[in-house]
Structure formats: C-alpha cells, structure tokens
C-alpha cells in the first residue's frame, strides 16, 4: 500500500515537472520570437543610419508620423536612430541573459524529470517482483 501511494506521488510529481518543462519551452520559444523581431528592427535601423551618414548637412530628412510626413533636422534624425539602436541592443542583451537562464532551468528540469522517471521505474520493478 505504501509503495502504491509513493508511486502515485511520484507520478503526480512527474506531471507537475512536465507541465513546468512545457511552460519553460513556451517561454523559450516566445523569447526567440521577440529576439527575431528586435534583430530585424536593429538591422533596419542600422541601414537607415548608414544612409543618414552619407548625407550632406543640408539634405532634407522627413519622418513619417502616422499619415504625416514631418521635416526633421538631420542631427535630430541621427540622434533618434542612434538612440533606437542603443535601446534595441540593450533589449537584445537582456533577452540573451533571460534566454540563458531559461535554458539552464530547462536542462535542470529535464534532469529532475529523468530522475523521477527512474525512481518510478525502480518502484514499479520492485512491485513487479513482489
């Protein structure tokens, strides 16, 4: 009787751990998606910066804000794009850190699940013999 309830407990533990693992994996997938979006934006902003750098001081730059094209100062546009690039880079670094953390948690969760599975197996083997 004792071993049956121990078995049930182990199986419940396994279920919980499996749920945790699938949540971790979903978080990792979401992280990848956001990283992809940011990487694309970073690339686009760097292209814009390159174009702006090629311009003379007196060139006209306009920004599309909603349906309105607004004339912008070249220096201001440069500063804005640079700021955006810095922001995106910091976000990406932050996401990298989170991703590493998530992956470590995922690995340790997998190990824990494996151990529980082993214990279940040995319990079942023990019961079978008895």
């Amino acid at each position, binding site marked *: 009787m004792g071993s049956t309830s121990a078995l049930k407990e182990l199986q419940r533990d396994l279920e919980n751990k499996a749920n945790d693992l699938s949540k971790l994996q979903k978080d990792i997938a979401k992280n990848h998606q956001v990283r992809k979006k940011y990487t694309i934006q970073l690339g*686009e902003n760097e292209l814009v910066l390159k*174009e*702006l750098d090629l311009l003379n001081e007196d060139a006209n730059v306009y920004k599309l804000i909603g349906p309105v094209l607004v004339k912008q100062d070249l220096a201001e546009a440069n500063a804005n794009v640079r700021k955006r690039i810095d922001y995106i880079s910091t976000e990406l670094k932050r996401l990298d850190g989170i991703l590493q953390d998530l992956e470590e948690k995922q690995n340790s969760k997998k190990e824990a699940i494996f151990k529980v599975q082993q214990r279940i197996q040995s319990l079942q083997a023990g019961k079978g013999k008895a």
Partner: protein
Amino acid sequence: MASRGVGLEMEKMSVEQLRALKEQADLEFNLFQDSLNNIRTATARLEIASTALHDLSLRPQGKKMLVPLTASLYVPGTLDDSEKVLVDVGTGYFIEKTMMEGKEYCERKINLLKSNYDQLLEVATKKKSIADETGAILQAKLKQLAPIQ
C-alpha cells in the same frame, strides 16, 4: 577530409538519430529556400523601382500625368520637378535626394541584396549537401539492417 570525419561520426549513430538529423537539416534547408525567395522578390521590386526612376527622369517638367490616390482612384496632375525624389530608407524615414542619388540608392540596395543572396546560397548549398549525405548514410544503414531480418 572534413566531410569524411563527419561521415564516420554519422555511421556510429542509430537510425532514429540519423532520421532526426536529416529531418532537421531538411527543415533548415527549406528555411534557407524561403529566405532566398524573399531576397529574390525584394531584388525584383527594387529593380522595378529603379526602372520607374529612370523613366521618371526622362519626363519633362509639367507633363500631364495621373496620380494614384487609392488602388482604383487616379486624379489628373502635372509632373513637378523630377530632379528631386523622396526615398523611403526604412523605419519611417524619408530622405530627399536628387534623381542621380536616387538611382545610386537603388543600385546600392540591389547590390547589397545580391551579395546577401550569394552568401545565403553558399550556406544553403552546404546544408543541402549535409542533408543529402545524412540521407545516404541512413539508406545504407537501413539496407544493412533489412537482410538481418
């Protein structure tokens, strides 16, 4: 020599592992194909833009034209100075350029895309050859296992 080394490693792997490896390589190759197609589409659009620019540069100022307001509504108008063009450079920024600079911009972008395409093609070909090699070893293994049964 390098591929031989990888081949030896794959020889030691089981059928399931080989199958998984091949599936993953195939998947990655398909992703590369999609990217290659995207680049080709973008390059084509840029070339159309470049042609349109060139055509525009031939038109005299004051020429009567039809201006699209929506996909189905055009209004008559006259061509203003075609020496100045507004270039969409991304992230909502537009730069006023001369016709010459506009053409150069298109050229630059097209060249950038072409070099990206070539680089991607190289990587994709390598991935395909890995997928093919994995598939071949998989087949050989399956043949080995079959007669034993």
